[in-house]
C-alpha cells in the first residue's frame, strides 16, 4: 500500500491521465451546458498531454523531447480552440440567454 503511495512511477501518471480523460468524456457526454462541455474537452486534451509527456519520458529517456514538444503544440492549439469556442458560446448566450446544447437545434431544421 505504501509502495503505491510513495513509490511514484509512470503508472501513476498514466492512471491519472486516464481518470482525467474519463472525467472529460463523462462531462462531454452528460452535461448539456456548452460551457461545461468546452471545459470537459479541455480536460480531455490535458489528459492526452499528460500521457504524451509520460510516454515521452518512458521511451525517450532524459533526452527525448518530441512528446514534450507535441504537448506544447496541443496546448497552443487548445488555447486557440477554447477562445473560438468561448466566443461562440458567448455569442450564442447573448442571442438566446441560454447555452443548452439540446436547444441549439436551429441548424438541424
Amino acid at each position, binding site marked *: 500500500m505504501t509502495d503505491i503511495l510513495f513509490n511514484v512511477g509512470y*503508472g501513476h501518471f498514466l492512471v491519472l491521465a486516464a481518470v482525467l480523460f474519463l472525467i472529460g468524456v463523462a462531462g*462531454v*457526454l452528460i452535461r448539456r451546458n456548452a460551457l461545461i462541455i468546452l471545459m470537459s474537452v479541455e480536460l480531455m486534451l490535458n489528459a492526452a498531454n499528460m500521457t504524451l509527456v509520460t510516454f515521452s519520458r518512458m521511451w525517450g529517456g532524459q533526452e527525448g523531447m518530441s512528446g514534450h514538444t507535441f504537448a506544447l503544440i496541443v496546448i497552443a492549439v487548445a488555447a486557440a480552440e477554447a477562445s473560438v469556442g468561448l466566443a461562440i458560446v458567448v455569442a450564442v448566450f447573448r442571442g438566446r440567454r441560454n447555452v443548452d446544447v439540446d436547444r441549439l*437545434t436551429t441548424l438541424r431544421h
Partner: protein
Amino acid sequence: MDPTTKFAGLPLLAWIPVLPLLGALINLTIGRRLSRQTVHTIAIAAVVGACALSLFLVFGPLWAEFKSRDGVYSIEQNVYTWIEVGAFKVPLALRLDTLSSVMILVVTFVGSLIHIYSTGYMAHEPRYAAYFGYLNLFMGSMLILVLASNMPVMFIGWEGVGLCSFLLIGFWFEKDEYAAAGRKAFVVNRIGDFAFLLGMFLLFWATKDMSADALFTAASAKLQAATDLDPELKGQALQTLKQTIADRGSLDFANLANPAMGKIYVEGFWGGERLAAAAGILLFIGACGKSAQLPLHVWLPDAMAGPTPVSALIHAATMVTAGVYMVCRLSFLYSSSTTAMIVVATVGLITALAAAFMAMAQTDLKKVLAYSTVSQLGFMFVAVGTGNWVAAIFHLGTHAFFKACLFLGAGSVMHGMEHGGSATPGDIMQMGGLRKHMPITRITFMVSCLAIAGILPFAGFFSKDEILGGAFLVNPPGWPAWYGEILWIGLLVAALGTAFYMWRLYFLVFSGDERSDSARKAHESPASMTAPLVVLAVLATISGAIGLPHLSIKLPAFTHALATWIAPSVVPNFFDPITGDPAIAGHASDTMTFILMGVALAVGAAGIGLAWLFYGRGPTPTLERLVEGPLAPLYRASKAKLWFDEIYDVLIVRPFRGLARGLYEIVDRFIIDTIAVTGAAFVIGLLGRVSRWFQNGQVQRYLSGLVVGAAAVFFITDCKTKPTFEYKRAGDMIELHASPGAGVVGKNSKLTWDITGDELADNDATGKLLAGPDVTVRAGDITSPKVTLIIEDPVTRKTVKVTRVIELAVQPDEPQEGK
C-alpha cells in the same frame, strides 16, 4: 434440284412458309392502316404464292427426283443452324419428300380457297387485318410443321399452329364464352404438347446415349460381311453410317429412320420394344391433343366459336390432321412397336365411335361438323394404327376437301340465315327448306355429304374403304387374327353413324319446309363464297381416283398414284427394326375387296336411308316418340356429349381450382405476402427505429457510441495480447519461443527462463544464462515439466511470470508440437 438453290438469299424451299409469314408480318403490323382491299390482296397473294411454289417444287424438282433415281426422294435445304450444343445440333432445315409434298399441296390449296372465301364471309369484320394476319401466320406455321426435317423444327410449327388456333378461336373475344373456348383449346393442347416434348426428349436421350463406337463396329462388320454388295455401294453405306453416328441425337427424321438407329428403339431401353412404345405413346398423346382424340377431344367442339372459315381451315382440314401427319412422319418408330400401334388404333376407333355417337343429337350446325371431324380423325388414326399410312394420308386429303366444303357450306348457310334475321344462325332446328334459297350451297353440301357417307364414286368412299380394308386385313405380330375384324366392325358402326348424322344434318337444313322466318328470308351467298365451295365439291367428287384399291385387273397407273408416291417416305406397316423385315401383310383377293367395298357402301346407304326415314321432311313424330320413349337415355347421353365436360369439371377442374386456391391463400397470401414482403418491411422498419435512436443529430449521442466502440476495441485487443510462450521439440532439443504480448510489458523487457521449476532464472548446460525471446535447451536439462518465462520490465519495474506445463515424453513417430 440442287440443294443450294436460293432465291433472294433464302433457300427456295424456305420461301413456302416464309411467304405467308411475311404476309402475316405486314398485316399484323401495318395492316390497320391499309385498306381492306390491300389487306386481303396481300394475304391471298402470300398463300397463293406459297401454293404455286409448292406446285412448282413438287411437280418440278421432286417429280424429277422421283422419276430418275432410286432411294432419294427428297429435297433438303438448310436455312441455318438453329441450336448447336456440343454434339447436339439442330439445323433449321426443311425437307420436301413425297409425304410432306401431299400435305403442303393440300394445305396451301385449301388454304388459298379459304382465304378467298374469307373475303366474303368476313367482309364486315372490324378487325379485318388481324384476321388475315392470323390466318397467314397459321399457314406459315403449318407449312413449317409439315416441311420440318427434324423434330424440334416440327415443334416450332406444332406450337405455332396451336397459337394461331387459340388466337382465331378467341377471335371474337368480346364474348366471354368465345374467349373461354380459346383458352380451353390452348390448355388442352398444352397437355398434349407436354407429352409430345417428353416423347421428343426420350428419342433424343435414346439416340444420344448409345455407344456410338459399338454401334458403328457392329453395323460396319455386318456391312463388310455382306459379300454380295459391290464395293462402291458398300463404301457409300459406310459413309452414311459414319454420318448417322456423327448426327446422333440430331432428331432429324431421316437420321432417326436410319435402320442403324432402328436398333436403338429395340435394344437401347430396358430391352424389347419398350423405347419405341414409350416414345410412340407419348408422341401420340401429343397427337391426341392436336388432333382432338379421346380423351383430349373436348376443345374441338368448343373451337367452333371461331369464325367459320377458321373452323374449316384449322379445325377440319389442316391443323387437326397434324397429329396424323406426325405419326406417318414417324412411321419407322411406330412400325417397330406393336404396342404403340395398337394404342393408336384403339384410341382412334373409340374416338370414331364416341364422336359419331355424340354428333347425333347436336342441334348446332357447326357442332355436328366438329364431332364429325373428331370422328373422321379417329378413322385416320385407325389407319395409321394399322400401318396403313397411305390410307391415312389419302383420307386426310379427301377429308380436307369435303370437310372444308361442308364447313364453308355451313358458313354460307349461317351467312344466309343471319341475313334472314336469325339470332342463332347455327340452330338447325330453325332451318329446313333451304334448298330453294341456296341452290349452289345445297348441291355442294350434298356432294360432300355423299363423300363423307362413303357413297361410290365420291372421294370419301375410296379413302374410307382403304381404311376399312386395311383394318380388316391387319394382323399385328403376336395378336389374334380377329383383332383386325374387331376394328373393321367398329369402323363400320362408326361409318353407319357418320352417314346417319351427316344426312340428318342435310335433311334438317335443306329439305322439308322452312321452320322459321329467317329460313324463309335466307338467300344465296356472294360468288367469293360459292366459288370455293364449287371447287372443293369437285375435288371431293374426283380426288378418290388417285387411290383406287389394287386389283388383279390392270388399272391405269394414276389410279394408284398416291400409294406409289408416298411409299418411299414411309416404312411397311409392321417390321422388325433389327432385320428390317416387314411382317407379312394380309393381301385381299379381288372378291374379298369387292365384298368389303360392297359392305361399306351398303352401310353408308343404310345410314342415309335411316336418316331419310326420320328426318327426310323435317323431324317426324315417330322420332319424337322414340327419343322420349325407349331411346331417351341414349339421346340424353349424346345430347350431353357423354358428360365429358362435366366429368373433367369434377375430376380435374375443381380439384385444380381448389389446389390453386390453397396455393393462393397459403403460399401467395401468407408466405410471400405476409412473411416475405410485409415481414421484410417490418424487420427493416425495426432496424430503422433502432438506428434512429443513434442517428438523432446530437453530437453527444454519436460520441457515446464512439466511446463505447473504442472501449470495446481496447478490451478485445487486450484479451489477445497476454504474454505467453510456445515450445517445439526438435530432435532431443526443445525450442522455447516467447510471445511477450503487447500489454504493460514492452520491448525493453528482460526475458529469462526457468527450467527447474523454482521460478528463478536458470543457466543452460554450458553455464550461460537462458535469456532472450528464443532459446533452445536440451530436453534432458529440463528437470521439471513446469517451465516459467520471467519478464522483467526495467521502466515500470514490474515482473511478470508465465508458467506452462510442457510435454516432455517423446512420442515415437509424431513430432511433438504444442502451444
